[in-house]
């Protein structure tokens, strides 16, 4: 067993874990934050996407020990004081989801994308979410949702 301390959504957690525990299991099973989904478990689908020290990564392909000392943001950490993050709001306004399974991961990728490129073209958005699979929407409204967020974050709307 190894002791790790991870800052998740602004709160510090210290826990004893096995080194082989995956970060997504730490987030879901140890911390009880079940907003982060598990799809493929092998770094393909992106359902488990989180931000680690500000960068979007697939948490099924990280060990929890690797997050020791890091800042992790999950979907639960995006809204502040009851206000949705602009990307969350975009998914709501533009119907960016159907079953919702891919949504937390998609939103985390969208947040990372807009941080690096606040005013992306449609093409850049489509490339930016290449690591996240959606079986329902055909991606169309997801792109619109991220465009909505980009405008809102730049003071438009």
């Amino acid at each position, binding site marked *: 067993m190894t002791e790790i301390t991870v800052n998740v959504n602004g709160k510090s957690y210290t826990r004893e874990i096995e*080194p*082989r525990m995956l970060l997504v299991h730490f987030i879901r099973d140890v911390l009880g934050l079940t907003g982060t989904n598990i799809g493929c*478990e092998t770094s*393909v689908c992106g359902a488990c996407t989180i931000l680690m020290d500000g960068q979007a990564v697939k948490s099924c*392909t990280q060990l929890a020990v690797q997050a020791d000392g890091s800042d992790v943001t999950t979907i639960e950490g995006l809204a502040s004081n009851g206000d949705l993050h602009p990307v969350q709001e975009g998914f709501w306004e533009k119907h960016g989801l159907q079953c919702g399974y891919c949504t937390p991961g998609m939103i985390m990728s969208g947040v990372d*994308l807009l941080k690096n490129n606040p005013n992306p073209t449609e093409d850049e958005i489509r490339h930016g979410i290449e*690591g996240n699979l959606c079986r329902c929407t055909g991606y169309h409204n997801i792109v619109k949702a991220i465009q909505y967020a980009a405008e809102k974050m730049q003071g438009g709307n």
Partner: protein
Amino acid sequence: MIPGEFDYYSPTTLDEALSLLQEHGDDAKILAGGQSLIPAMRYRLAVPEVLIDINNLTELEYVREDNGHLTIGAMTRESDLEESTLVKEKYHLLADTAEVIADPLVRNMATVGGNLAHSDPANDHPATMLAYNAKIIALGPAGTRVIPIDDFFTGLFENALEENEILTQIRLPRPGPNSGGAYIKVERKVGDYAISAIAVQLTMDGDTCTAARIGLTNLSPTPMRAKNAEQALIGQVITPDVLEAAGQAAAAECNPSADLRGSVDYKRDLTRVLTKRALTKAIERAKGA
């Protein structure tokens, strides 16, 4: 789908990492970006007893030019390669390659060193580094060793690194005047490995090709060069017939296997076409440079 048990170490210096590797030898595996190793551990295809996580060795994360070379630290993430202006401006083949590896989330973690150390013929960097005539720098208990890329890949998932060595750097010669490169990959969908992909780096003198190296992705058990295709080009005035001859040579000398990505005949013909396209693009760049 949970990895087997292992002891975990995260050294903060290269020396520490080397002595851990020395101590545990065969039982240990290095963890870089984890994008190949962790899935393999989940499937229990890899069951290391000791994991040496080198993600804290930030001294191995850099892309810079010195002494006529591009040097890339082994822990450089694909996303950093993709964003490097130096790479975009001068190393077009490498820039083309970085963009088509996996997907942006995987690229945020995956490392250039890991891509080569994994020595999967389906990975994209082996072909690119073969075309660049790169050198692999390995550090072991006896010091630093320089391995020419032509000697690096020794089999499926096998290479010339010793068990107690760490790949620390990749070195590419800076392309000279009138040189150009390109990488063209066809994949079933974004994030998949290549059905066929071609890496070309060449030099032109007017319309004559004076030097060319071609690497092939996912077309043989060991990453390979298309040497017959290279020979079909070097010293020739480039015409559509010469390009076709090079394409046919590459299609004949590659050694693909039939799988979900296609039949052998399909892969060979795709290789013929992609070789011509990659050559055309590289020649355009060489002339524009």
